[in-house]
């Protein structure tokens, strides 16, 4: 095993551990835990047996195994970024609603003298 393989396997192991601990605290659903675990196990698989990536690359019509990994990683990052944007927008809106409700409390009840 080369050093880079070892490092990557350890990182994947940490990823699985993090997913399990989030699942225990109720932060992940069972399905999400399964998906994250599969993702990290796939990473381990590709790291230990790089030829699986080459096989995937050939079947997808991409030249090299390393390339297909990079392509998929970029696609995944874009997707996450997109989800994050949506999430952020939701939060913005919720904070605005909270702020609004607080502000308008002053307008309720009998008319103020001001």
């Amino acid at each position, binding site marked *: 095993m080369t050093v880079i393989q070892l490092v990557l396997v350890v990182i994947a192991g940490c990823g699985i551990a993090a997913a399990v601990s989030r699942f225990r605290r109720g932060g992940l659903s069972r399905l999400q835990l399964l998906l994250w675990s599969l993702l990290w196990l796939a990473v381990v698989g590709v790291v230990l047996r790089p030829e699986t990536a080459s096989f995937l690359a050939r079947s997808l019509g991409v030249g090299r195994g390393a390339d297909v990994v990079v392509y998929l990683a970029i696609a995944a990052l874009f997707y996450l970024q997109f989800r994050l*944007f*949506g999430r952020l*927008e939701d939060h*913005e*809106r919720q*904070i*605005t609603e909270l*702020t*609004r409700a*607080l*502000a*308008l409390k*002053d*307008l*309720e009840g009998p008319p*103020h003298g*001001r």
Partner: protein
Amino acid sequence: MEKRVIVIPAFNEGRTIGEVVRSALQVADRVLVVDDGSTDRTSEAALASGALVVRHVVNRGLGGALGTGIAGALRLGAEAIATMDADGQHRAEDVKRAFERLAEGDVDFVIGSRMIERKGNMPAVRRLAQFLGNALTFLLFRRWVTDSQSGLRAMTRTAAERIEIRSSRMEVSSEFVKEIVDKDLRLAEVPIEAVYTEYSLSKGQNLAVGMQTALKLILRRLLD
């Protein structure tokens, strides 16, 4: 007479808000200032000049403040609601004109346009930015408005109740246009004169904000 309320969103406008409120009170029954989390004396100055004031505990941006102001005006029983800027660039007589146009009864929403008579001293850069705003608004929402980014508007109570403002920041001006289109509101534009002072220009938007606004509008359109 129907009850007229002017909503003024204000963020750190302590220098100008008092004067704006006093002029606004000449043409409306109530003036509601939404202090959008200012750190200066905006609230105090507005109160002292006779406005009703509600405060955002944290700054939410123009859209957030306008949404609060319109909701507040509805609670106050407004029959007609206008919005104007706090930096002194809008004249009360133009708001009055917007109210009067509304009172004719054949429209639900009035936008005060700086472009119809082209009076005032709008700088060229502003004019370009405004054209781009109009063009993007048209592309996204299929409605050409001569001044889509104008902060001076008036709407009937019914229109205000139907319009849903979701954006927090500058996209709100185009969002009004979107709502007008989606809810089939009848729109009229009245000519207004914008008064650009060094102060109001210094508070104005820059390219970065413009780009951000455009990007948000496009993304939101794609996501909805």
